[in-house]
């Protein structure tokens, strides 16, 4: 069966953000079906479809909804439209071209969770998108899709847009809730999870724009249609964003499970690299998920995944599970950024280290200091004063921050750890070659320029130091043991 676009079917249709066009193309049919069902049956349906969240964590939406306490009177639905993960823009495309699809999804999710008020938390940098969404909300209110009596069913639900003001952590679900309450976007310690105690201390559901946009199609086309797309465990269509020096950057809809190579070279997708360059590295899931090696490297002869040797990894499939085999954190937002063979990876390392150091909210010591430390090391390497030891230190820092070792409140440092660790481990040879090209005393010079008192200190030079001092365990360095 050929793949049919649903999430992006209205993109490119003239005047697609208007209610009239949306309704003429089958809009609000799903909501009509949903309102005839009971909320519990709707939750069961979404559970059966196993709709995994598109916001990053991949948590099944139906499961999340079923955690809400049974005896609640007020429920909030927060729509996570704070798309700040570089280089992700699929939610922007949805809101720009098809705002009513999102509103219909909100209506369905709202009915399933018996939401009283839905807040669309939209990042402050979305200006045009904000006006389009607000216009769509007005239209939907006027047509009776929101308000005291939703589509004549007696169900009451409000929907408001809340604009953020420029902070990446506000995309984290509890950070979003804090920001909605008019505070700094500092993520909260969990538990209690938002489903129990969220916005305004009431049960709250936080879902991504794309997760909600999938719901109308499940209702109109049925669960079997949904389950027929994609590999086991990762069903459904997904919007993939491709950016960087490719021929046709953009947002493309495809079933989950498509390979990275297909997305970069496929005729329906990015159509290859600009100037026929080779791919050196690609980050398949937004910046926070880690890096893959590109086709600059030879293919592994026996087709195995080998994280240690330098082999082409573009055959990685884009679904929630396969990416983990390549050392990624997860699928993330499925936004690819492609780095070609001419790019110096030290630039990439510095750029991403700066991003996390800038965006860490500073509540947790490991995250605040760790991201800052990695940024300073990346700066040093970038300035041509790196040491081979710095690469080991980077790996050591990454092993000691984040939610996985239990060091932080939110997942931002995990998102910082994976891209830096995979970049340093998978491309260690390139970094070492760059360090070898430096002047022999560059590192010492830089230290002296910062602190003349450090004049007499020894400048450690590489893995040997670690063994002499014997303080670091080698478990963390599987990639650097080559």
């Amino acid at each position: 069966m050929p793949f049919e676009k649903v999430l992006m079917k209205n993109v490119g249709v003239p005047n697609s953000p208007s209610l009239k066009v949306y309704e003429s193309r089958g809009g609000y049919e799903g909501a009509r079906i949903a309102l005839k069902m009971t909320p519990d049956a709707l939750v069961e349906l979404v559970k059966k479809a196993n709709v995994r969240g598109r916001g990053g964590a991949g948590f099944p939406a139906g499961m999340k909804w079923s955690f809400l306490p049974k005896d609640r009177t007020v429920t909030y639905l927060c729509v996570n439209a704070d798309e700040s993960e570089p280089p992700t823009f699929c939610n922007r495309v949805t809101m720009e071209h098809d705002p009513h699809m999102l509103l219909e999804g909100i209506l369905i999710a709202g009915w399933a969770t018996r939401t009283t008020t839905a807040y669309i938390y939209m990042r402050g940098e979305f200006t045009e998108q904000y006006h389009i969404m607000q216009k769509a909300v007005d239209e939907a209110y006027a047509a009776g899709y929101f308000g005291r009596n939703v589509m004549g069913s007696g169900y009451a639900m409000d929907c408001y847009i809340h604009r953020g003001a420029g902070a990446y952590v506000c995309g984290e679900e509890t950070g979003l809730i804090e920001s909605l309450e008019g505070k700094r976007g500092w993520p909260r310690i969990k538990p209690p999870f938002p489903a129990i105690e969220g916005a305004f201390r009431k049960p709250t559901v936080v879902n991504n724009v794309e997760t909600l946009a999938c719901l109308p199609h499940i209702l109109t086309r049925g669960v079997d249609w949904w389950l027929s797309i994609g590999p086991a465990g990762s069903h459904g269509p997904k919007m993939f964003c491709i950016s960087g020096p490719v021929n046709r950057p953009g947002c493309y809809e495809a079933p989950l499970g498509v390979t990275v190579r297909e997305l970069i070279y496929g005729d329906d997708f990015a159509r290859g690299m600009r100037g026929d360059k080779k791919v050196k590295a690609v980050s398949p899931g937004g910046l926070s998920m880690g890096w893959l090696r590109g086709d600059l490297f030879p293919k592994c002869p026996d087709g195995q995944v080998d994280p240690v040797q330098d082999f082409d990894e573009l055959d990685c499939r884009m679904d929630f599970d396969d990416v983990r085999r390549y050392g990624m954190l997860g699928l993330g937002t499925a936004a690819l950024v492609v780095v070609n063979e001419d790019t110096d990876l030290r630039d990439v390392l510095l750029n991403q280290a700066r991003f996390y150091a800038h965006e860490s909210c500073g509540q947790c010591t490991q995250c605040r200091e760790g991201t800052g430390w990695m940024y300073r090391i990346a700066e040093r390497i970038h300035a041509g004063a790196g040491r081979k030891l710095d690469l080991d230190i980077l790996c050591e820092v990454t092993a000691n921050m984040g939610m996985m070792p239990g060091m932080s409140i939110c997942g931002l440092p995990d998102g910082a750890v994976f891209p830096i660790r995979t970049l340093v481990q998978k491309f260690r040879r390139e970094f070492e070659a760059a360090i070898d090209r430096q002047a022999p005393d560059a590192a010492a010079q830089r230290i002296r320029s910062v602190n003349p008192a450090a004049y007499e200190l020894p400048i450690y030079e590489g893995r040997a130091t670690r063994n002499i001092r014997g303080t670091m365990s080698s478990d963390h360095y599987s990639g650097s043991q080559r």
Partner: protein
Amino acid sequence: MSWKVIDRNQVAADQLGPGLSALTREKIRGFFSRYPTKQACLLPALHIAQDQIGYCSLRAMREIAELLEISPSQVMDVVTFYTHFWTHPKGRKVIVLCRSISCELMGGREVREAIERRLGIGNHETSADGEYSLLMEECLAGCDHAPCMLINERMHKCVRPEDVERILADAKNDQLDIPRSTTYDAGR
């Protein structure tokens, strides 16, 4: 190291900056019905105040605190957390330039240099004529059209260094011509 101690109880009246107009207060009150607490209106209130005044002045912060029944320190706490709010006057137009990975790969750094050369200002600075301020931010979610640049409300896509002159000379470079909602209309 040296720093300046500001006693905010004793700030001279002329340093407090402008306050909220009656219309602004009205707009802020319009948000009260949307949220169960008044504090939740803080972000919208600051957006509206910054639209009116051009930045978040101390007087505006105090008045917002009074309006929302929270303490002024809570308002300042929020203002200083978010990059969108300015605590000192900014230019009439704010150029927000993306410095994240896709834009940098596609030549964002050269665009930044071209802008800095043209206006003679660096990050978080305002040109002498008060027209432009420059702000470097992380990904603006327009990576398919990298490098991106936002001037107030309008997004400029695929900017090349040689385009900078033309874009900055255009007087309408910050205006969007799309239909707007009348419910609440706040520019950036």
